[in-house]
């Protein structure tokens, strides 16, 4: 019996040793920062390094992985900036805790792409009111308690997509299926509203089904499978992002119906699994470049932290409509290999 207890104590010490080493491993990362950062308490001394906290909504989305990569790449060019990333994995409560931790660490600047607008507004305001400059990327919060918002014009993109569909379907019109993003996120609402505006010019274009896939490819497959079951006649699938459109394509292909309809997405990443390649390979009929704004966020951070300048409240990024005609050229333009 006492043998068992010794056994247990061995395990206990082992586990805590493992834990401790993990801790120290993570700690050495931030302690480098601690030792090299000038003491912010001493009056008037110039800061040598700035800590930026980046709270991401969901790294399960490839577009957000690209956003983080672009932020990191832009920050690498400025040794005074150190960026730490937190991922909320689509959990609002976790993202609130992530931001609270950043506030606690007194980060010099907060970049956030909120999972949903309403739940995150209060905590973002807390950071802003505590004197931390806040840059909001892509998805908005409510109110105006932030320093700068950087994002594409989702309404315009939705409208362009709608106009494209109206044009392609022509006088005969057609039946459209809409695969929407996460309901509480602002790009979803705007891409939806914009699209409806875009197709309004053609009264024969009808949206026959509209379901949320929360920006995720696997959800889109399931959602599209159900829609395919219920609707025998579909002409266009409008996905709020490329993964949604690709998921719908996979579902259609599994039922052998992918040639009956055209697929439209948004994002246009120049990656091997991105929308540009999908257009080049014929799966998507069109996509729209939706820049992540990562690079612009770091540029604003430099302005705010180093140059101590004011920045504009809203920065709207441009989009490009990509079809088979220009896909290859755009792909090379954005660094695709």
């Amino acid at each position, binding site marked *: 019996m006492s043998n068992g207890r010794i056994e247990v104590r061995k395990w206990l010490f082992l586990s*805590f040793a493992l834990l401790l080493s993990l801790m120290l491993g993570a700690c050495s990362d931030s302690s480098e920062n601690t030792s090299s950062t000038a003491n912010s308490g001493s009056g008037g001394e110039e800061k040598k390094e700035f800590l930026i906290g980046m709270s991401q909504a969901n790294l399960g989305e490839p577009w957000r992985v690209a956003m983080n990569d672009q932020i990191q790449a832009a920050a690498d060019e400025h040794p005074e900036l150190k960026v730490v990333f937190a991922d909320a994995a689509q959990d609002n409560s976790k993202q609130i*805790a992530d931001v609270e931790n950043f506030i606690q660490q*007194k980060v010099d600047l907060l970049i956030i792409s909120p999972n949903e607008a*309403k739940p995150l507004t209060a905590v973002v305001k807390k950071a802003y009111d505590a004197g931390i400059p806040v840059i909001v990327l892509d998805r908005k919060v409510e109110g105006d308690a932030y320093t700068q918002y950087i994002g594409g014009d989702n309404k315009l993109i939705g409208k362009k997509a709608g106009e494209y569909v109206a044009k392609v379907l022509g006088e005969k019109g057609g039946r459209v299926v809409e695969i929407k993003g996460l309901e509480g996120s602002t790009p979803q609402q705007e891409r939806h509203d914009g699209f409806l505006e875009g197709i309004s010019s053609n009264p024969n274009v009808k949206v026959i089904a509209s379901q*949320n896939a929360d920006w995720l490819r696997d959800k889109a497959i399931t959602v599209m499978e159900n829609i395919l079951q219920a609707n025998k006649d579909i002409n266009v699938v409008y996905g709020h992002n490329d993964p949604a459109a690709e998921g719908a394509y996979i579902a259609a292909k599994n039922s052998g119906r992918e040639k009956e309809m055209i697929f439209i997405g948004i994002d246009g990443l120049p990656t091997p699994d991105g929308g540009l390649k999908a257009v080049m390979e014929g799966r998507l009929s069109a996509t729209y470049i939706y820049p992540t704004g990562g690079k612009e966020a770091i540029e604003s951070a430099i302005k705010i932290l180093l140059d101590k300048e004011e920045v504009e409240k809203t920065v709207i990024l441009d989009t490009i409509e990509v079809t088979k005609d220009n896909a290859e050229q755009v792909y090379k333009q954005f660094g695709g290999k």
Partner: protein
Amino acid sequence: MSAEKSPVPNLEQYQTKFNLKEILYWLQRFQSILGLIVVVILASILCVRNGENLFLDPINLANIVRSVSENGIIAIGMTLVILIGGIDLSVGAILGLTATAAADLMMNKDLGMVFTLFIVLLMGALIGWLNGLVVTKLSIQSFIVTLATMSIARGIARFWSGGIGVPITYGEEANLAPSAFSFFAERVYGVPVPAIIFILLAIIFFTVLKFTRFGRYVYAIGGNETAGHLSGLKVDRIKILVFVICGLLSAFAGIIHAAQLSQGSPNDGNGYELNAIAAVAIGGTSLMGGIGTIFGTIVGVLILGVLDNMLGLLNVNSNLQMVVKGTIIIVAVVLQKANSNK
């Protein structure tokens, strides 16, 4: 008995051995608190930036207690269920359902706060009652039953709101929620209201378990259900009541959740049952039933909260955080196994 042996035995050696054994006994009895102390010390040492202690800051500690409140309230109910030898997997789904229902009733059906709270708490109690009923009258294992009600509650929640979250906006006009509801998201003298509710409920149920007949019955049934039955205890009724309490507490957590996020989403609460079970297990409650305390559960809840906070403040990779958490749970449960093997 040898005649050559000295008539007066040497008591000195027994004295020290007894002390060592006693120390070990208390060490293992209070292993959960020790675990909490270890984790708190670790956090206090490691989470320092620019000479400031990030962890021991009152604001940070308030954040921790706030973020564990929902799990804590659910864990109280889970403790009771596990004590009688059962388990409740539907708590997370009940949270999602009640959060969605609360938001919808106030915003779209324009019901007042009191009425809404009443209906929502009733929903939780009803689902708990359903759980208890099927477990006792149909003699099906609670694991399966609550797995099923988890699915049912989740489905109802999604169906109710069309699968999307119901936002909560406060105001006087129709189709806006009564601003009194935001109380659940506020702080009183710096202490978050959810934390106050959690502590109050913990005290209440601590007292119930330790000092009331009902509490003794719960332990009796958990320890040996047949013996309890033979002693004349109304086993079925007590078990049902336990499940009702668990459902009720989950509903309460759902209300707080909706207020905290200013929205009621049917997909929220996913995985909350695992967090609650982890807290209960770390706190020293045996999953076999009959052994455990509310106090232990609270400590377990706090250990998980401090861990989350420490890993967050140290900016440990989110994926590593899950690894660390899982390791802690195994360590804690292994310790319990050694304890109960005595």
